[in-house]
Each structure stands twice: as structure tokens, then as C-alpha cells.
């Protein structure tokens, strides 16, 4: 799985730890980048702000994007991703605690590829995250092959 990576956008450190643990257990932990708010995510993707030095970087294979984020919300980040030519087709999975119909609809309207609710139950949660990682990194064929 060289070259293939996941960008995790998650502001809750505990959720981040749990997700990383689950991915690690699924053996996909070696290629995960983590940013902690919406602005950081946008900067990371477009090589700007604090990520200016990463001018020539590889785009992640998939983005796991929370909705409730500081600075820029997940939906705003998604809009920017879709608005930019470079990232327009990048697979984005909304990974969120919310199961509001409103959030779900808006996410798909903004062009999310998938909407996954974080299960409350720990084992279910771990299983879901592991499956997500495996699916998007191994099973799914990305639009532009690196």
C-alpha cells in the first residue's frame, strides 16, 4: 500500500486515537495523515499556510472528514475540495457522530462519496473504521491512479 494514504480530519483527540488504533489493527496505520481542523485540512491539501513547504506532495487516496470542526466546518472543507480542480474527484468519506438527515443530505449535495456515522459502541466503531480503511485503500479504485 505504498503511495496510498488516508487523510483524517478529526478535532477530537480521543476519537482520533480510537480511529488510529482501529486502523492500526487493520494494518493500514502506516499511511495516515492527521489534521485537526478544517483550515488545516484545506492548507494541507492545497499546500498552503503551514503546509507551504509540502509544495510537491501526494494527494491522499481518501479523506475521512468529520463535520463538526473548528474554524472551517467539514461541509465547508468539502465544498472547497470539490471546487478545486486538483481535488475535485478525490474520494471523501464523511465520518461523523451526527445522524441528522440535514447533515447527510448536505454532505451528498456537496459531493461526498460516502456518509458514515461513528457508532457509539466501541467494537462496532473499531470494525467500521477498519472496514472503511481497507475498502478505500484496497478495494476501491481511485479516479486518478498515482
Amino acid at each position: 500500500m505504498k503511495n496510498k494514504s488516508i487523510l483524517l480530519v478529526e478535532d477530537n483527540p480521543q476519537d482520533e486515537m480510537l480511529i488510529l488504533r482501529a486502523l492500526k489493527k487493520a494494518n493500514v496505520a502506516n499511511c495516515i495523515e492527521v489534521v485537526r481542523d478544517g483550515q488545516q485540512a484545506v492548507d494541507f491539501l492545497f499546500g498552503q499556510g503551514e503546509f507551504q513547504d509540502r509544495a510537491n506532495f501526494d494527494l491522499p487516496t481518501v479523506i475521512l472528514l468529520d463535520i463538526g470542526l473548528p474554524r472551517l466546518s467539514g461541509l465547508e472543507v468539502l465544498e472547497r475540495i470539490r471546487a478545486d480542480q486538483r481535488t475535485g474527484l478525490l474520494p471523501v468519506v464523511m465520518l461523523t457522530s451526527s445522524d441528522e438527515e440535514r447533515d447527510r443530505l448536505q454532505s451528498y449535495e456537496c459531493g461526498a462519496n460516502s456518509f458514515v456515522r461513528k457508532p457509539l459502541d466501541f467494537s462496532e466503531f473499531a470494525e467500521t473504521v477498519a472496514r472503511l480503511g481497507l475498502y478505500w485503500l484496497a478495494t476501491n479504485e481511485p479516479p486518478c491512479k498515482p
Partner: protein
Amino acid sequence: MNRVRLFFRRLFMGSSARKRFILWATSGYLIFGSAWIFFSDRLLLAFTDIYALARLSTAKGIAFISLTTLLLLLAFCIIPDRTDQRESLRSAPPCRSSEHLPRWIAYAFALSVTLAMLWVRMQIAVSFDTRSLLILFMLPIILSSVLGGFGPGLAATASAALGINYFAIPPLHSLQIEQPHDLFQWCMLIATGLLASYLNERLHRARKQAEDRQAMQEAAQEKLRASEAKFRYLYENMLNGVIHARMIIQGDTPVDMEYISANPAFATVTGITESVVGRRLSEVIPGYCENNPESLQTFVQVAATGIPRRWEQYLRELDRWFSFSIYSPAHGEVIIVTENITDQKRAEEEIFLLNTDLEQRVEQRTAELTAANQELDSFAYAVSHDLRAPLRAMSGFSQALIEDYGESLQGEARMFLEQIIIGSRKMGELIEGLLTLSRSTRGRLHRDRVDLSEMARRLLAELAQGQPERRVEWRIEPDLVTEGDAAMLEVVLRNLLDNAWKYTARREKALIRFFPRIEGLQHFFCIGDNGAGFDATHANKLFQPFQRLHRQEEFPGTGIGLATAQRIIHRHGGTLLAEGQREQGATFCFNIPSYSAIKRES
């Protein structure tokens, strides 16, 4: 005899000009004729020459005939026009013959009065010698024909001619006439008699027709009087003010109007107590004409076209509201029917103000409610998003601890961790329940056709799949369909079936039924079970959130499901009812009234 009396009364009484003229004419004729005969015959004494006498007598006769002809011409002139007669005959009232003299009396009168005159002639014959005195007989002939028309007149003429021929014209006691001048006079008598009879007959008929016509006119007048009285009563007593007025126009512009009449209610309706008749609108209500040129224009339009109009107007000058109905009885005149509608208008105004106030208040409340709902929305959102994360951390790290370090954990330490996990899961369920409850009161209601039978079957199948070890029989009446929000109704069915499933857990032969029930006009859908039931005395607590009728170790639960179900049914305009007894099962019934009744909500 009664009829005779009636006839004479009608002949001589009464005061119509026509009758007076008849009386004057006939009595004048009687006096003049008698005087003529008396004095003209006296004149004859002056002549001794028999031929001169004869010529004079002929001239006298001709003069008399001419005079009577003139009188008859006069009488003709008062006969009503023939077309009038026909018209009056056509619509004549029922025959009034009772007021006319019987025919035989007229004939008897004719004969007797002629004979009486003959007797008078015989008595005075001595002094008049052989002069026939034919003129005397005109009286009975005219009287008879006046009384009875042509027939009696003819009878009188015939009897007079015969009698006089026999008794008074030489040769006496013979029907022969020697002298030519006697024959001439005799013939003239017959001719005059016939003419008089004929004319009187015409007069008779004319009089009868005139009488009929008068009677008809009287009847019509009586009707008119009754009608007039009726309308007069209405005019005087009606509650609407009525004014009759004439428009006053200068050039093309109506400037004023003059009151012709006003009924008593006009004063009450307008509060103008002094008499307005003959006065002008500008005097009665100063300023009206200047302030309301368009009203005057309308008045004059109605007066010109005759097309009635109605409108309502506030008169500042009188501080009253009026309704005006304008009619035009004649060109340039108007009749205004008016009513004081001030109270009604004030009430309308008040209602309008109240409505506006109410609308404002409703808007305000709605805004408040919307704000509260939005607050609740964000609260629920916060709960769903922010409360779950720490909970997930608690249970997640406990689980991770057990997974990664479970072997090194001793005795109670592991059990405590498990309790943390159980507590977290429980809290998770509560949060889920709260979210569902809050969501059930928010958002739009969709309108779907929902097959509840199919939905119940699917949900029970899911439940059976979750607990394959349970043996539960279910009976679902097919094709129970309603209209409502499919997702929300699924929450209702899921909660009710979950409960039925849960509370029949201790039954060996568990039975869950879904069936319809009709109560009055309401169609209910019911889910019944033979499970643990509930204590009916606390049934009122069933639908309150977090209220439970069973202990956790008996039947676990959050106490939110039924509250949610009830809220959803309420939002659909229906009711959710619970029936049950301890250990005798429970039945929950709900109805969804026609969707149109709750459409306003969405």
C-alpha cells in the same frame, strides 16, 4: 217592491254630476214643455181663421219637435263614448240587474200613465173642443221611455196613438182621421214617440254601462286605497329612513338636492329631528355637498339612468355610518332608502382590530416558537454530536483496555471496566431515545401512502432475526393502509412492536397481533400482545418520557419509546390509546385522521 225603491233611490239620490244634470234636464223639460203647451194653446185663441189656426198649430208642433230634438241632442252628448262602453262591458263586474226596475212594472207604468193622460185629455176636452192636444201625450211617452227604455216607450206611444185616434181625433169613436192636419200631427206624435223611446233606450244603455264602469272604477279605487294604505303603513312604520328628493343641477354638475318628502324613520336613522321637506341637503347637512361630490354624482347618475345603486358611507357631519339604496321614481328625482349601520360597522372595525391584534400575537408566538424550536434543534444537534464523542471515548478506551491489557487486569478491575462499558452503552441508548423523541417533534411531515401491515411484518421479522431463540406467533391483518409520514410511522410501529416483543419474553406462547378496530367514525390500528401488561392505575404515566411501569431488571428500557410514539401520532392529528391489565397483555391503538385535517401543520 224593494227593487223599485232601490231604483228610485238610485235615480234621485246620489250626488254625481251626471245624475244632477239628468234631474235638471228632465225637470226643466217638464216645466218648459208644460208652459209651452199652455201658452201656445192660449195663443191659438187669438186666431179665428181656421186655416191660419191649422198653420199655426203645425208651426207650433214643428217648433216643439225642434226643441225636443235639441234637448235630445244634448242628452246624446252625455252618453259615454262607444269604445269606452265596450271596454267597460268587457271587464264589467257581475250584472247589477237587481237595481233596475222589473220590465212589467215599466210596461204597466207606460200604459197607466198614458191612460191617465187620456183621461185628463177627455176631462179638458170640453174647453178645448175638437183640438186633439197631441202634445199632452209626449209626457207619458217620455216618462215611460225614461223609466223603461224602448219597450215601455213604444207601448206608451202605441196606446197614446190608438187612444187619441179613437177618443180625440174626429170622427170621434172611430179609428179614422178626417182632417189631413190631424193625420199629420198624429203621425208626428208616433214618430216623435218612437224617436224619444229609441233615444231613451240609448240613454238607458249608456247609463247602465256608465254605472257598471263606475262600479268597476270604485272597486279599482277601493283596491288602490287598500294598496295605498298598505304602502303608507310601510312608509310610515318602516325602520329604514326614506327620502324623496329632487336633484339640483348647475350646468352638468349636481350641486345639491331638495327634499320632497321624508318618512318618520328618517329622523331616527339620521338624528335630524327638524322637518327636512322643502329644504335643501346643503342646509340640512352643511358641508355634505362639498365633501362628497362623488356621492352627488352617483345620485344624479341614478336619477338619470334609473339604475338603482347601493353603497355604505361614513358621514363625518353626522358621525354615523349609513347604507344608502338609491332608486329613481322619475327623471331627476331620487328615493333614498337609508339605514344607520354605525353599530355594525363599529363591531366590524373592532373585529378587524382584534383580528389584526390576534394575527400579530400569533406571528409573535410563532416567531417565539420557531426560535424555541431552533434552540431545541441546536440542542439536539449538540447532543447528537458532542455528547456522543466523550461517551464513545469512555466505552472505547474501556474496551481497548480490556482488549489490550485484559490479561493483566485482576478480578474486580475487569468487572469495574465492564460496568463502565455497560453504563456507557445505557447512556448511549438514552441519548438515541432522546434524539428520536426530539426529532419526532421537529421537521416536516411527509405525506406517504403507508402499508402498515407490510411494515409490521418487516419489523417483526427483524426482531425475530435478532432473537432467533424466541418463539413468537404473530397475526397481522393484511392491507392496513394509511397516509402519513412513513419514517415517523415506522418509529411508532417499531416502538410498539419492540414493546410487544419485549413484554412477551416470559410467555411460552407469545402472541402479537396487528388488527384494525372501528370506534364510531374513527378507524384505529391496534397492536395487541399477551405479555406482562401494565398496572392500569398508572396508565397515565405510560406516555410520559422516562416514566416506566416496570423495573429495569424485569424489563429493561429507557421510558422514551411510548412518549415518542404518542408525539408522532399527535402530530398526525390522531390519538394513541393504551389498554391493559397486569399480566393480561396490553393493546395499543392509534388512529390517523384524514391527512387534509393536519395539512395546515406542514
